[in-house]
């Protein structure tokens, strides 16, 4: 466990720094799509939900896991679709207009 802990904290620290650097550069123009995209990405908690729901270790974990799969799937599907829908609308001026 302690060695796991060390590498976990390492990953968390580095990912947070990468996150800060990358997200700082996102134009305020796109802050709404940014939020819906990061929301979709963090719905990766779906992978945890899948294992809980699929392992069927107890009645309780099956129920909670299935609800969690529903919630995260809704975010995965919805998050990516609405982000793309928003980004599609951002257009530059047509030349000559």
């Amino acid at each position: 466990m302690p060695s796991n802990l060390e590498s976990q904290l390492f990953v968390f620290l580095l990912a947070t720094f990468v996150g800060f650097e990358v997200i700082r550069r996102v134009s305020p123009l796109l802050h709404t799509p940014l939020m819906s995209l990061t929301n979709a990405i963090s719905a990766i908690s779906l992978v945890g939900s899948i294992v809980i729901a699929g392992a069927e270790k107890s009645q309780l974990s099956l129920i909670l896991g299935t609800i969690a799969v529903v919630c995260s799937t809704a975010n995965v599907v919805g998050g990516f679709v609405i982000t793309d829908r928003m980004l599609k609308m951002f257009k530059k001026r047509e030349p000559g207009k």
Partner: protein
Amino acid sequence: MIETYFIQFTYIAAAAAFVLSLKWLSHPTTARRGVRVGELGMLLAIVGTLVHHEIVSYQWILVGFVLGSLIGLPLAVFMPMTHVPQRTALSHAFGALAAALVGTAEYYLHTDKLTTFTMAALSLEVILGFLTTTGSLMAFGKLQDLLPSRPLVYRGQNVVNLSLFAVAVATAVYLVLNPARSELFPVVAALSLLFGVLLIIPIGGADMPTVISLLNSYAGLSAAAMGFVLDNKLLIVAGALDGSSGFILSVIMCRAMNRSFTNVLFGGFGQVQMAAGAAEQRPVRSASPEEAAQILEAAASVIVVPGYGMAVAQAQHKVRELYDLLTRRGVDVKFAIHPVAGRMPGHMNVLLAEADIPYDRLTEMEEINPDFPRTDVALVIGANDVTNPAARHDQTSPIYGMPILDVDKARTVMVIKRSLSPGFAGIDNELYYMDKTMMLFGDAKSFVGDLVKELAGARTPA
């Protein structure tokens, strides 16, 4: 063995895809590619997870996929752009609930095997998860007008909230040290759920951009905590990315209001203004669409300042027509976007982009403020506090020190507004009483529609 390698490979690829996805999102020209690669990463991770050896049956996973898609897809496809803040709040609730429920399931599955560290991460996951769930649902209710969007405050509120939170944390700490005391787990869960409600109740509509960002950050952190519990590095990475994104956005929002986190969460923006309520009746100059149209026609440059009022009135498409007519007459039209305009970060940009206004016309506050003194007309549509000059000089004003759009420096100011009633922060706006200000009273959509009619009618038929 091979299965483990496969899963690890897909997770590493997914983590890389997520970072690239956010990187490409930084600019409108590459942003859609960012969504593609994000989807790819997600797909890889899901496929990788499905071969996990602990999974014995796919029945309920499939049920979850189908139900989730049935909920998520319509919310994404049919939700009008004016409702994006609501959808976002709802999705924070979904994400946080998933994390909290997985944490709960993990706790009851492994109660006797949990190490102190895992239990600590699990408590964090569950507390953040549950409080973000109810908090986001409250935010959703306020944005959707199911709940009053004004702050609900009562005496001793902060004491109640903080002591409740302290009890929740203390119980969790005790549970971390004694994981077997499973009767305490529901207590932590219930207190967190309750705290989420109480935390958001006193927050007013104008503070929603900060609160939504903060909830975004919490939802991400609870996903990261879940990664610690499950020893899943992909979850840690994705959660950390989401957490830092939400954090950066909330810092930007706070800065744009010259307020601190504690002030947003515990300040109750609405209470201060009772004193300012007794404003004397001062004369304003109101104007008709005809007069306003004449001035706009004669202008060489116009800056439009949109606010939440434009979103409420769904006026963005009429604004586009106005933009087209003026641009065709050679008027230079730009849009000035205050960081906290609307109900979430970037809200105005999405609405104006929806109405087909080119994004290079949408300018940020720092960039456009020097332009106001050289601008003939500043047209304020449904924005209030972000244009109030009192923020610059009146030290007694609750918004003193907040960075504002220097609308008052334009040669003529036009304000489209329903009535003289003060904005969400409840502060009287001295902009309305200036000599060069014309108040255009009416619904934003119909008034801009009238302006369009006037301008179109005056044009000589081609």
